[in-house]
């Protein structure tokens, strides 16, 4: 079973994505902010991180950059998502992919499968 860390501050969306991915047999651990995620990732070893960019206490792009600079976590693929209007917002973050909100669920499944497969 593939393990996915989900970082999303919006409660409704966090529930939906958790539900959608669990339904597809992923092991989902959800975080609502940067702080709890950073704690969780210390001892965690997910197959993919699905992370929102605009977080209340941090920025997904920066979090991703930090991960890519770390020794043991840099290999974990990061899939960033945002409802932000700037299509280039995830450029230079080191993320493996970017998905724009609102997305089609098929598109979400496809991308996750691609980067965990």
């Amino acid at each position, binding site marked *: 079973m593939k393990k996915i860390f989900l970082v999303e501050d*919006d409660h409704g*969306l966090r529930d939906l994505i958790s539900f959608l991915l669990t339904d597809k047999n992923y092991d989902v651990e959800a975080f609502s902010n940067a702080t709890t995620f950073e704690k969780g990732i210390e001892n965690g070893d997910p197959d993919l991180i699905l992370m929102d960019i605009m977080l209340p206490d941090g920025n997904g792009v920066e979090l991703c950059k930090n991960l890519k600079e770390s020794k043991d976590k840099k290999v974990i693929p990061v899939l960033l998502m945002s*409802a932000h209007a700037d299509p280039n917002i995830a450029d230079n973050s080191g993320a493996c992919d970017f998905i724009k*909100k*609102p997305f089609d*669920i098929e598109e979400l499944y496809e991308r996750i499968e691609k980067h965990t497969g």
Partner: protein
Amino acid sequence: MAATIHKGTDGSVLAYQFNFSPQYHSEKRFLKKNTLSAIVEFSNDAIISKDLNGIITSWNRGAQKIFEYTEKEVIGKHISILIPESRLHEEDLISNTIKSGKSLNHFETVRFSKSGKKIPLSLTVSPIKNDFGKIIGASKVARDISDRVKGEEKHARLSAIVESSDDAIISKDLNGVITSWNKGARRIFGYSEKEVLGKSITILIPEDRMDEEKQILSKIHAGLRIDHFETIRQTKAGKKIPISVSVSPLKDRHGKIIGASKIARNIEEQIKSKKKIEGYVEKLRILNSVGKDISTKLDLKTVLQKVTDATTALSGAEFGAFFYNSEADSGESMMLYTLSGAPKEDFEKLGMPRQIGVFQPAFSGQGIIRVDDLTADKQYDHNPPHYRMLKRYLNVTSYMAIPVISTSGSIIGGLIFGHPEKAVFKKEHEIMVRNIAAQAAIALDNSQLFEKVKSLSEKKDEFIALASHELKTPLTTIKGYLQFLENKIEEPRTKLFLTKTLDQANRLNNLIDDLLNMSRIEAGKLQFNYERFDIKELLQEMCETFNYTEGSHQLISEFGDDPVYVKADKQRIEQVLNNLLNNAEKYSPNADKIYLKLKNDNKKATVTVEDEGLGLTPEQQQMVFSRFYRAESTKGINGLGLGLYLTKQIIDSHSGELAVKSEEGKGSEFYFSLPLDL
């Protein structure tokens, strides 16, 4: 000798002296007497004899001619009838000389003619003796010297003119040796006449202009004049001065050129006034351009800087500053300033300009200050930091401060000017700066409004970006659950309802995008990601999707066979096409066909979307690309009026063209072109 003839320098007879001596034979005496009488009679000079009492005893024709009296009229009369009252004393002198046996030679005086005309004369008076040597009278020879006197007067007048002239009047010979030198020449060049006579004119010519003298001399040799030649000469002290010189050949009485006269005028003042005029012209130019600049520019900093630069230049100040009262977002008052001619660091040392004594009146709108010497004026020295500090950091002696007051009466700020020298700022500078300050006040009022609008607009854009983000998050959740259900549910009616709900969720998403894009276009912040792609392929894909989705219309395509490459933002072009296709569908409710065509003319790709719908009137065609415009006939059809506006902005940003051909009731044809990427 019976008579002594006195001759003048030109050889003419001036006087005859008769000696009646007893040694002469009486016959000879008689003959001589006759000869002499004839000479006397026909002389042009007046030859008169009188007795010791001054009574006229003889009067020749010359006397009649000069004095206009006939012999008959004057014989027996006293000689004083010829003498002006003011000169009667001369007669005493003459008669005393005669009585002592002496002659009076070439005595120049004035006598009256019968008609009262004053006649300048040269008199020679000799005693007449009888046979025994006793003086019995006097002979008087008077020569009219009017012509000579006139000549002398003319000469004196000319000399006086030459001497008193402000211009240098110099003559030189053909070798360039100075032969005369007037006072004007002395004043201009500093040499005395004595110093320069006999010297070469080249002492006045700077080394680099020596060639000029050769040219001048060659013209003079040719008998030509040189008029108002402007050049530089040097004074005795070595100072170079600008002069205007006219040179004419000097000829002798036979017409031979013997030298040149030179009239030189110092045109230093003239050049100064010319420069002054040029200065005024330049000032007018600055005034004109600053007026234009500040009335067309709205950016606050630009207006402040333009006004500062222009007023500093116009006032002749060493430095100028514009202190501008402004309000920060927090409502706190603060001060901006622009500088001209002084480094910012010097000003920063002064601290808050508001508190500086000399600045204060300008900011509080008390009025204009113009001080010739700040260091001598203690009235602005109340509050520290005071003028000494200004003096130290900015070296200010002349000082001028002018408040800038808005049309509503509020104080916008103040212009201050400084110069290290005394008394630089005059009334004219004050008036000029005051006028610009008045213009600037209007421009600044406008610019303040503009700044406010700009800041409001920026806030609006920020808000729209935030709102769009906030709206899209729940929309993502809604879409997610709906899509999940749509996939799971088999029951056809429920499935259809879910599909319709999803369509509406997508529409909502597009509307949010349109709003966001509009605000970004307004702010000039819409970004484009250009890439090379085949627009035919894009059109084919869209065509397939359109026809695959069950709808009311069928899309008929006409693309040609070859790929057509453009360099564009593919997503935006897709957005453009979606807009045009959706419009075609929306505005042709009673038709069932839409035509999509692609043409390639080797320069540009033109895409046409044609419907058979409501069409547009010519007025509507004019307005259709405006923001929020919705045609009257579209009532009942939904929309914000942003689609075609955004479409036009996107195509314009691609250096393309978007246009419409339409006839009301017969349908519309929207087409856009993009440059090919060859």
